[in-house]
């Protein structure tokens, strides 16, 4: 029953969207899919995977497919602030019928510095006219931390030398929805690491509008696309955790769904890279994995079209979707153990779960880690 009500709600949202004019009358999604050589079956397969990722029942697949087809009703503005362009790069590698089809052809990507052909005056004009023409309707995606306050001169863009802070604030003002793509725009990112020379900060700190954070360094392509699809489907903001991350993607810890979790539970740890345990896929906690402290769906979604993810490759999670992970999650190749670090939760850090109720889980995890560490002393562990 519950599913039926949701199905109807999402259907009527999509019907509503389908009444909106397309941004380009000469293009339709189905014809583009065909043109690019993708069969309907392939497209539906992709929609099925997306449905499952968004934690919707399989019967919702046609709705997700329709949502993707509705993407050409929503203009998108993508801004680059202080960043490395890794998030855009992640996006460019999305699975078929790829976000490249989606984002470049289906969606009217009104402004994207890296991939648009325009530059200089023309680019600046494009941004301004997109913001004016689609006032209150465009989706804003921001990549990069924002040099802030008296340090805003560390990032100026465009012919008029506007600061990144001003551009981001102006673009936020009239957006239909705002997504901070990547850890930099979500939390400040690498440039905000101590001593934060450019005073870089999160997008949410420079605008009063609600910002949905899609952190990760980079976030997986599926989390970026999923965020967009979710907005198209629901028309509202998703359920969020304490750090404004969508719960469908960031509701579980890396540790909860890790393929090496069984090894952790069995007390089987890699003691140093290259040892027999490493060859056998033992748990990477003792060589610095921060999976128990990190909320993300990497183990399920993986990267590069589901090819792999850091833990599969034998390197621990680095906690890249957590605030200030640069300063809080170091030292890279040593376990965090019972070290406390300071975040907005006053020392609990990301161990407080997505719902701020994780104190218990923290304790359980810490006890668990200590217990397993104790029984796994087959070899002298590295100095903690």
């Amino acid at each position, binding site marked *: 029953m519950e599913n039926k009500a949701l199905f109807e709600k999402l259907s009527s949202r999509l019907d509503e969207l389908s009444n909106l004019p397309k941004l380009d009358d000469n293009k339709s999604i189905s014809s583009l899919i065909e043109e690019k050589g993708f069969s309907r079956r392939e497209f539906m397969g992709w929609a099925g995977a997306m449905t499952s990722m968004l934690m919707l029942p399989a019967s919702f697949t046609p709705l997700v497919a329709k949502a993707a087809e509705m993407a050409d009703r929503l203009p998108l503005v993508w801004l680059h602030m202080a960043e490395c362009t890794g998030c855009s790069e992640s996006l460019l590698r999305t699975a078929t019928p790829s976000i*490249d089809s989606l984002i470049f052809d289906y969606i009217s990507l009104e402004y994207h510095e890296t991939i648009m052909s325009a530059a200089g005056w023309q680019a600046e004009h494009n941004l301004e006219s997109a913001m004016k023409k689609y006032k209150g309707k465009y989706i804003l995606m921001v990549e990069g931390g924002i040099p802030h306050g008296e340090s805003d001169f560390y990032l100026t863009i465009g012919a008029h030398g506007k600061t990144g802070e001003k551009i981001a604030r102006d673009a936020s003002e009239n957006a239909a929805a705002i997504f901070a793509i990547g850890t930099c725009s979500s939390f400040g990112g690498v440039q905000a690491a101590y001593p934060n020379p450019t005073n870089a900060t999160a997008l949410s700190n420079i605008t009063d509008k609600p910002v949905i954070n899609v952190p990760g360094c980079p976030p997986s392509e599926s989390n970026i696309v999923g965020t967009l699809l979710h907005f198209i489907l629901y028309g509202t903001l998703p359920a969020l955790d304490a750090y404004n991350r969508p719960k469908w993607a960031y509701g579980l810890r890396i540790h909860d769904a890790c393929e090496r979790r069984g090894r952790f539970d069995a007390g089987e740890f890699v003691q140093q890279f290259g040892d027999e345990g490493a060859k056998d896929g033992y748990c990477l906690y003792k060589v610095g994995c921060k999976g128990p402290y990190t909320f993300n769906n990497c183990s399920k979604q993986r990267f590069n079209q589901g*090819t792999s993810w850091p833990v599969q490759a034998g390197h621990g999670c680095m906690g890249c979707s957590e605030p200030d992970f640069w300063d809080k999650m170091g030292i890279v190749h040593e376990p965090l153990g019972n070290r406390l670090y300071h975040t907005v939760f006053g020392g609990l850090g990301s161990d407080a779960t997505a719902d701020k109720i994780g104190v218990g889980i923290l304790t359980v995890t810490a006890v668990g880690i200590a217990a397993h560490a104790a029984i796994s002393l087959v070899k002298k562990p590295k100095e903690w």
Partner: protein
Amino acid sequence: MIKLIEKIEGEAKLNFNFKDEKIEFVDIEFMSTRNIENILKGKPAFDALVINPRVCGICGHAHLIATVKALESCYENLQISNKAKSLRELTLNFELIQNHFKWFYLTMMPLFGHKQEVLKATYPSQLMGKAIALFGGQYPHTSYAVVGGVVCDITEMDIIKLQHYIDKTVQFVEENLLKMDSKSFSTCKSVESVLKYEGDLPDILRQINAEELLEHGKSYDRFISFGESSYFKKGKSIKTRVNNNISIDNVKESEMATSFAKNVSYKDKYYEVGPLARAMVNKNQLILDAHKKYGDSIFSRIIARVCEISQLLLHSTKLIKELDLNEPSYIEPSINIKQLNASGYSAVEAARGTLIHKVEIENGIIKNYEIITPTQWNLSGGTREKMGVSQKAMIGLCDVKTAELVFKTFDVCSVCTTH
């Protein structure tokens, strides 16, 4: 007459100065910085392995390999297995290849009036991204290379997958970029033999000829390349005279008053880096022929970059065949990093040219870190008396559109330049 034209390439700005309707000088400014070198100071040395790939999302893997090699150069008698060396080299090759595809299809083609063919850029670059992820876990931003080797333990099955990705990429090249057998392409010694074929590359090269752009984009005709590998050689080439005996001690960074990026010179002279430079130092016959006919022009730069795709794909197949999976992936260093007081450096070839990292460590903590990126070499903003490489290449052109084309043949990227 001064004509201000913005070029948003990340955050770089070009001010074109015209005299008698010709470009007389171009100011190059970088309008942002993240100050990552300062962030690295005081951090545990191995943390650089996670931070530095984030200097650039476009060539982050080159930064990882440069970091690990710089840290390793701080040790004495460190052992690295041949397998680990090859795996690192392979993943770096793949990053170069996927970059070249994106440059050609996303940046170059539209400048020649063609449609921006996004799918042609992303299909092969996705394949190469997967190939990196197979070893590295994810791309961009892997941290699979650590001091002492790599953390992945690959199997025969991974090798089969990898070869599949390479074969599919070769197939794409042969069906789109240059419609001829890649092996025959690798033995081509003359430009004419390439121009006989169909494909997106010969199309563009023919267009350069038809539009009389062959003389465009010439600079100092000085090339340099520091990153050595089983494929690339270290050296400098002044015109075609190659000298392999070069030292990183002669590389100098200097601050600019108007820009956040620093200039880079070798013995106080500006040198071009990148695929053309590598090919000149490696004495690649086809590129030497292009250079003989058209000098260090946009023609030579384009053919050199695209040609490198096929060469690196073939070379990667060779590396895979020679891999011995029984060798260790990682050999633990005999000294704990916390006991290390040393300094070191590394140079690797990234897609756009030589990338240099220098590090100083005290008790395992980073005391100083310097990064010199490829774009800094090519886009050094010199003075009117002593111009940078790309500045010189734009002088004398009559319009900004052609200047943009010349500028972009250097595959400029301000992302890591504004580190």
